[in-house]
């Protein structure tokens, strides 16, 4: 099994290198319309209030951000509107030099004033303006614009995540003039500096962008335009891909879809795969009996065979790796050798299940029965739910699968109206500050649905946040993980795996571990 996995990793890695090398070797051709599928639709047009990939995919090509991630060299960042930047030694001053000749789609020049107006809107939104990620920018004390090409951010406190924040795909740079007229202007209008101009949004149907001739990077974009088609039904989406009606879908496919498309289309398509910064997490409602008892939680944790589950699920669902709280493969995440030592992660499942039964006995819980709250989205929630229920059945626990629609699912999780639930944790970047937030005390985190308080976890969280020495931070993170998994409030079951299948005439697109990143389509071209 390990061998086959190794072979797989090597092949995937090779495929990765091959496509990357291939893309570099060829000179991009101009022209063509890229048609791609999106499985949902953006509600309105304001980046600062958006939270969904369904927004990023059609809208991001209209805009630029200050920095962006340098695919395929993730997690390195590079300039988008910024040409260069410096950080003062005390870590409190960030100075950005903008590229010359940046224009908005209406022809007006974009300057430091626009960057300032944008970040002021994000950090201190006016009345009625929604800024979802406001908290991440609360360390900004002031923004100065000494000249049209220079922006200086002064911080109140050191913040190790600040550069990552400036590369956030959500921080679209808006026109200061338009924002002054109406702070809500971006909600209903699209005016950016990005490689593509907005043409049309047919509600429920499609979204069209066309090449922006005055784009500040000469010669780019290569495409004449793009057409995003909204297809909510999974089968319809895959069928559209197979029939060549769309060339790609950028969120991700299940392994079965990949195999099917590969079988049907052979070398007409290319596959890229990557671990994904999304995990599925079993969360216990610690305010409900018997889940307030750590022995019961531990028992249910021990019953899960992560390794066998990952092996099987990775063949049908878009999940693959067993991991802890951080994404497997990320430099600060636990290695497999450390992972197997965590309670519930051992490879001898029979021993673990025997221990689980013993723990249930000790806790005086007989014939445990509960409702398992899961989201009614088939991929990957349903398969993982079915697999968990099967594993719990192995230690004699009877589980009722409850899969309400998403809004009821969220309401029940948030309201503590559940026994055990399958929660998820999805972020745009690998960042312990983001991923650990799910596990710290409920009073300190808006996304802890286990409703527990654990000062030890909070303390470790704060210590790792301020720790600039990677090695020490690594150790702190292991301590955090060890404690969290021993208490077993929430157990990361499996990490997602992103698979993108596209027709090979699409070139210049690189995989990233997040479906929120690298979607400006600036470097994408069609070989036809």
């Amino acid at each position, binding site marked *: 099994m390990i061998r086959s996995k190794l072979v797989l990793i090597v092949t995937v890695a090779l495929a990765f290198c091959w496509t990357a090398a291939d893309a570099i070797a060829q000179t991009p051709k101009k022209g063509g319309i890229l048609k791609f599928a999106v499985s949902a639709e953006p509600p309105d047009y304001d980046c600062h209030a958006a939270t969904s990939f369904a927004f990023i995919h059609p809208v991001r090509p209209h805009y630029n951000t200050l920095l962006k991630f340098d695919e395929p060299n993730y997690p390195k960042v590079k300039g988008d509107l910024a040409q260069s930047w410096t950080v003062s030694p005390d870590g409190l001053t960030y100075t950005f030099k903008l590229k010359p000749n940046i224009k908005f789609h209406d022809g007006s020049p974009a300057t430091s004033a626009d960057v300032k107006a944008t970040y002021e809107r994000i950090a201190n939104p006016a009345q009625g303006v929604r800024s979802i990620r406001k908290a991440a920018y609360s360390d900004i004390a002031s923004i100065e614009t000494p000249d049209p090409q220079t922006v200086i951010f002064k911080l109140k406190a050191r913040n190790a995540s600040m550069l990552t924040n400036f590369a956030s795909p959500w921080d679209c740079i808006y026109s200061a003039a338009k924002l002054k007229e109406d702070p809500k202007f971006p909600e209903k209008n699209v005016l950016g500096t990005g490689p593509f101009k907005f043409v049309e949004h047919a509600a429920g149907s499609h979204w069209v962008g066309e090449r922006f001739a005055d784009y500040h990077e000469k010669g780019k974009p290569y495409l004449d335009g793009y057409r995003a088609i909204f297809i909510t039904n999974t089968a319809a989406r895959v069928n559209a891909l197979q029939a060549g009606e769309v060339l790609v879908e950028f969120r991700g496919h299940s392994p*079965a879809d990949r195999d099917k498309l590969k079988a049907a289309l052979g070398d007409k398509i290319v596959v890229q795969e990557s671990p994904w910064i999304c995990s599925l997490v079993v969360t216990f409602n610690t305010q409900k009996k018997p889940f307030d008892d750590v022995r019961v939680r531990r028992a249910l944790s021990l019953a899960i065979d992560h390794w066998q589950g990952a092996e099987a699920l990775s063949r049908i669902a878009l999940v693959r790796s067993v991991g802890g709280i951080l994404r497997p493969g990320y430099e600060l995440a636990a290695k497999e050798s450390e992972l197997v030592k965590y309670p519930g992660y051992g490879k001898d499942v029979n021993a673990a299940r025997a221990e689980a039964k013993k723990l249930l006995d000790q806790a005086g819980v007989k014939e445990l029965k509960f409702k398992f709250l899961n989201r*009614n989205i*088939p*991929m990957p929630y*349903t398969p993982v739910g079915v*697999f968990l229920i099967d594993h719990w059945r192995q230690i004699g626990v009877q589980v009722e*699968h409850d899969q309400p*629609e998403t809004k009821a699912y969220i309401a029940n999780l948030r309201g503590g109206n559940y026994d055990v639930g399958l929660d998820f944790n999805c972020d745009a970047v690998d960042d312990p500050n983001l991923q650990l937030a799910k596990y710290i005390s409920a009073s300190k985190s808006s996304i802890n649905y286990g409703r527990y308080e654990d000062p030890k976890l909070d303390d470790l969280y704060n210590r790792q946040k301020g720790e600039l020495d990677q090695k020490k931070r690594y150790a702190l993170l292991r301590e955090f993980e060890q404690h969290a998994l021993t208490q077993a409030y929430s157990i990361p079951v499996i990490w997602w795996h992103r698979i993108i299948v596209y027709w090979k005439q699409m070139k210049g697109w690189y995989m990233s571990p997040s479906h929120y990143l690298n979607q400006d389509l600036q470097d994408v071209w069609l070989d036809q």
Partner: protein
Amino acid sequence: MAVVTTTPEITYKAPKRRHPVVQFARTQPLGAAGLVFIVILFIAGLFAHWVAPYDPLDLDYGAMLAPPSWDHWMGTDAFGRDVFSRIIYGARTALAVGFLASLLGSGFGAVIGVVSAYFGGRVDMLIQRFMDILLSFPLIVLALTVVAVLGRFPVGGLDLNLIVAIAIPMTPKVARVVRSSALAIRELPYVDAARAAGYGHTRIIFRHIAPNVVAPFLIMFTAFIAQAILLEASLSFLGLGVTEPTAAWGLMLSGTSQEFYSQAPWMIIFPGVAISFAVFAFNLFGDSLRDYLDPRLKV
């Protein structure tokens, strides 16, 4: 031709007394065929644990998405579960949902219909207006909203709220038909006589009116079993019906099947055939039952 069929009673032969089932089978061969299939479904559902070759919940990671073979007659699904076994167990779910929902819907509808007809006047008016309101919601729209409102209340893998959601849209239709049958009876002398004798409302309704609306009730009841099975399939398809891992036909068409159906078509072909056959059988039987009991009734 039609003229001939209207006058068979003229020949006076001592009518042979046959068992009603035999009589039904002779006059309604299609209906009898439907009945046979229903009986088969029942047996399959009741004795699923003997009929089915596998446990419908057993995951087999070694045989995921296997095409039909000797081991798995109808192939396996994304979890390696045997499709044939799940269809057999699915009969249980379909019959349970169908019967319970239809019983609830037509039972409730019948009560409302009889009460509405018996009391007449204001009561009738009010009830009828409310039924109009329910009727003007499209069936699936109403069921969808009710499922969303009630949430889920699973008992033994069956969602009781789902049954309620399916039953509610049926109620006004049954109420309508039963009401008009009951209206005709209300005017008959023996009901008047009962009233004159000073019997209470409940007694008159149950002893005198109810037995006379049994025929339309039975006909509606059978027809709605079929409708309930279809509606359950539609709701499950939309992700609002029965939940995994329960074996249910509609569910087998949705969820992961949506991911895989174009590469593993057996995952959707067989459950779809099962739904169609079951609904077909109930419709066939229901139709013939109507012809047999009350040919003039329009459902």
